[in-house]
């Protein structure tokens, strides 16, 4: 091997491994639209396992979406689409799926899921999977992306635009916020003209000046960008018609700004209300209404962007901070869960079902599904395949190189990359030999030690009854003597699956009693001694 060859190899390696200093001048024209579904979307009622008895009988006895209303999107994987997703322009999101412009990405999640909204939302927005519950999540993945341009002058158009109220962590970088937040271009313009938009030169020593200049510059930036945005708004248009729902209106604004020539790379819109702990409802419920709004908004946007001729450079994704548990709770709702589905949309996406159905994955703790693909894979693919950055660049933003979902990713432009880590094997789905259907978790055992009384012996006129309930049910507690005579009803109520400590009144003569607990149709008993 000659000397020259060695040095070329070295150079190659350098180019591959060095973190390329980016220049904003070289960014491509591609745009991402992130639709954030705040509150934790219930994946199982969005994409339903329409042939699965367990779904109808055990998990969602009252909240399931009836089999005859859904449209199968993968017979092989047993997945169907909620009827609300066929609402909107040209058959809504189902229509987009049929045209190959909607991807259904199943089984996304992360290790050691956090069930706090805020924490889990922050994990999704930061693109950091923390190793402990207190690891700080100081910046967002797009904030870090645009941090790489912080040495350059700010571009004419803002890097990112958030349509909504509050700046999202997603756009917070180490060198400040990378997005402009607005609810309407006209309000933004009006408000932007109210701020002090001139630079004020003050005579002061450096220390005070730096804080003063900081505030002053925020004002200058607001005014400048409000003009740029208004200009794009005035020269842009919409062709498709949208509903009056907030999300539709937000996406309408995004389409118009894109059409008006704004060079912003990322748009962020949000739909709230997915935290359906109570009254999630079935076919006519809250969740169904949200999905209808989602479908109407996304289908109108996609149609609009196609008619405006920008579809080749725009892709969208939906994201939510977590899924929901398979078991419905006692309040006609569902609780925070783990693994779920995401959607991708646009002419550049693979319009197919990607990944196995998450609902069949085993439960990790009796309540929550395991997941197949780290959600950061989606971001990683956007950075590399859509924004055209190297996988090293992607790793610098997201902490490590990640495999693309299903290896080939969700974008048509993505190619299988052998240098990326192999995707982990998806969780093994167990098939119940009796039914031939997927079986999830253990069949709950009904043991008496799920109830206890303390203190026992009972010294006062009251005690706590601890109940560990696995199903939501009506609970009736009565006090009975050992010879079976009923002394009285202690309490009655509807309880969610959880641990409950309830006070029971025991103003009874000393002796040994049986506390009889009726949970639904099953009866348990706990002995207690009254002193």
């Amino acid at each position: 091997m000659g000397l020259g060859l060695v040095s070329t190899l070295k150079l190659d390696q350098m180019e591959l491994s060095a973190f390329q200093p980016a220049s904003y001048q070289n960014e491509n024209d591609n745009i991402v639209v992130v639709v954030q579904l705040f509150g934790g979307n219930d994946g199982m009622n969005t994409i339903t396992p329409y042939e699965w008895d367990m779904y109808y009988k055990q998990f969602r006895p009252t909240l399931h979406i009836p089999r005859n209303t859904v449209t199968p999107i993968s017979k092989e994987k047993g997945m169907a689409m909620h009827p609300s997703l066929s609402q909107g322009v040209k058959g809504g999101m189902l229509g987009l799926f049929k045209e190959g412009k909607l991807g259904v990405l199943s089984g996304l999640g992360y290790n050691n899921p956090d069930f706090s909204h805020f924490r889990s939302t922050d994990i999704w927005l930061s693109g950091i999977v923390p190793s402990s519950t207190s690891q700080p999540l100081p910046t967002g993945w797009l904030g870090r992306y645009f941090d790489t341009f912080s040495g350059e002058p700010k571009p004419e158009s803002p890097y990112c635009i958030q349509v909504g109220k509050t700046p999202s962590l997603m756009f917070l970088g180490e060198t400040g916020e990378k997005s402009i937040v607005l609810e309407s271009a006209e309000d933004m313009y009006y408000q932007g003209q109210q701020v002090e938009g001139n630079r004020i030169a003050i005579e002061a020593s450096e220390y005070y000046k730096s804080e003063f200049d900081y505030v002053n510059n925020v004002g200058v930036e607001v005014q400048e960008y409000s003009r740029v945005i208004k200009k794009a708004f005035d020269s842009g248009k919409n062709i498709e018609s949208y509903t009056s729902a907030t999300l539709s209106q937000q996406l309408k604004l995004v389409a118009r700004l894109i059409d008006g020539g704004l060079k912003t790379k990322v748009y962020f819109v949000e739909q709230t209300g997915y935290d359906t702990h109570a009254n999630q409802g079935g076919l006519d419920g809250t969740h169904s209404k949200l999905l209808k709004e989602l479908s109407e908004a996304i289908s109108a946007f996609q149609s609009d962007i196609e008619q405006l001729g920008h579809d080749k450079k725009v892709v969208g994704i939906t994201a939510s901070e977590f899924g929901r548990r398979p078991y419905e709770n006692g309040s006609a709702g569902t609780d925070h869960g783990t693994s779920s589905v995401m959607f991708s949309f646009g002419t550049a996406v693979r319009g197919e079902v990607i990944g196995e159905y998450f609902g069949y994955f085993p439960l990790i703790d009796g309540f929550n599904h395991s997941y197949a693909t780290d959600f950061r894979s989606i971001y990683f693919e956007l950075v590399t395949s859509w924004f055209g950055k190297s996988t090293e660049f992607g790793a610098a933003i997201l902490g490590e190189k990640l495999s693309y979902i299903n290896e080939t990713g969700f974008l048509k432009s993505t190619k299988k990359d052998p240098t990326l880590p192999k995707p982990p094997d998806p969780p093994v789905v167990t098939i119940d030999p009796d039914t031939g259907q997927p079986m999830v978790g253990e069949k709950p055992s009904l043991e008496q030690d799920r109830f206890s009384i303390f203190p026992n012996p009972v010294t006062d006129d009251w005690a706590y009854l601890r109940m560990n309930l696995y199903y939501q049910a009506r609970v009736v507690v009565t006090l009975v003597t050992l010879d079976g005579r009923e002394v009285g009803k202690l309490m009655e109520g509807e309880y969610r699956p959880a641990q409950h400590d309830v006070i029971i009144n025991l103003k009874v003569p000393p002796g040994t009693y049986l506390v009889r607990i009726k949970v639904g149709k099953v009866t348990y008993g706990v002995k207690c001694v009254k002193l």
Partner: protein
Amino acid sequence: MSVVSRRDFLGGLLGSVTERGEVQAGLEEHTAPLSREEVRHLLQRCTFALSPAVIDKYVGKTAGEVVDTLFNNAQARNSPTPPAFVNDVINNPDKLSGNRRDEESRKFGLHSGDYNWDLGGWWVTQMKTDRESILEKMVFFWHGHLTTQYSNCVNIPVIPMYLQNDLFRKNFAGNFYTLLEKITIDGAMLIYLNGNDNISEAPNENYGRELLELFSLGVGNYTEADIKAAAKILTGWKVKYFADESMTPNRGYFNPNDFDKNSKRFFDETFSVNYEITQENVYNNSVRKLINVILTKKGNVAAKFMMTKLYRYFVYSNPNKTDETLINDLSSRLVVAKFEFMPVLKTLLKSKHFFDEKNIGIQMKSPADTIVNMVSHFKYVDKYARNVMSELGLELFNPPNVSGWKGYRSWVSTKSLPTTIYYIHEIFTYNTNTDFANWAEGIDNSGDLNRLTSRILETFFGRAVSAGRFKAYTALLAASPAEWSSVRGDKNAAGQRVKKLMENVIKAPEFYLS
């Protein structure tokens, strides 16, 4: 992508953090009588609502006198009348039927929802009427430090949120041992950081972790094993809201069945359970002992952690190396004072360092500073002021996460700046021209054009402006002192001008600095 280089004024400035110059003055007491600017500086940092009349009262007094007064006044007013709903008694609606069920359900709904907003309004009222004490600034400090968010998936009802606020009031500058002991079994905290779920069979480490990481020591001063041990030591504390389910609704109580009775080791100290398991014994031998071990064994670390945070809160959010020496000095004093905050805070606020010219006007105001001060002068509804603050990123009783608000430059962003101006305009619409005129008339010597302008500016600005800009602000009221004298007689015309001045005041960078 096109880049427009003519706007290089934006380049890199945002977010770049420049250190201020070194302040050489230390903790020695500033004994000279206070100038007007110094009084303004002290009051702006220690209260949410500033007024020229209050500044007048303290000019010429010493820092020692004024700071003592701010603390004495705080002690005197730390038991305000709570909102009426705090006295409500609620039974579990699930155990009732018919009308009673509906009634309790409705009540509980209000307690979990709207009343938390009302409580925010109540707090705004406390803040805006507290012009001469350090109380509300300290309560807000503790709220951001020992955080609880009422809106955490399943809302925390208002009574425990109120009780936590009251705990901060009663211990506004008190003893850190006491405060940590009490917050550990505080009802709202037990819900927020899952103490309620921390049981011997399944210890929940949420609170134990934050106690060490965010509340007392800071990251890197404990191990994962310490967290696990702390969680076990703190098992068994619960809270219930309903009167029919608890002897002490909304307050922490002890449930012996959930308590881990094994011995634990924490910071090389054994926590054995060789006593009769009663609420009182467990409180003393587990909760209090745990806090005692933390603050005794790692006293220097805890003191540094707390004094850094308080320095950032009261003096400057971006301290440099020289300031750190001073913070070390403060920390040693806190250890010597056995973690009594009051003497150490007084030392800081009376010091030459605090009054150094370099430290004036360099703090970013929070929305609480800007909005409360504004509604302390102009008519508005306190509950709406709470909503405005929330729109600006500071929702009382609902910080963004367990580490509280980020503070400093996060308060002034491309979203919050125009929105602040927008909402203050809304506050102005609650006031007629006559209201503006009457407000200005209420300022001492308001007939004197220059004096009135300077009084108005000092009320809202972190620092005095240059002579040129001062003149421009004056011109918004009148072209000359004589013209102002004549305009004053016409309330509508005068009010219009005062309003015009205020509309410009809120645009100035100084308005966002303290």
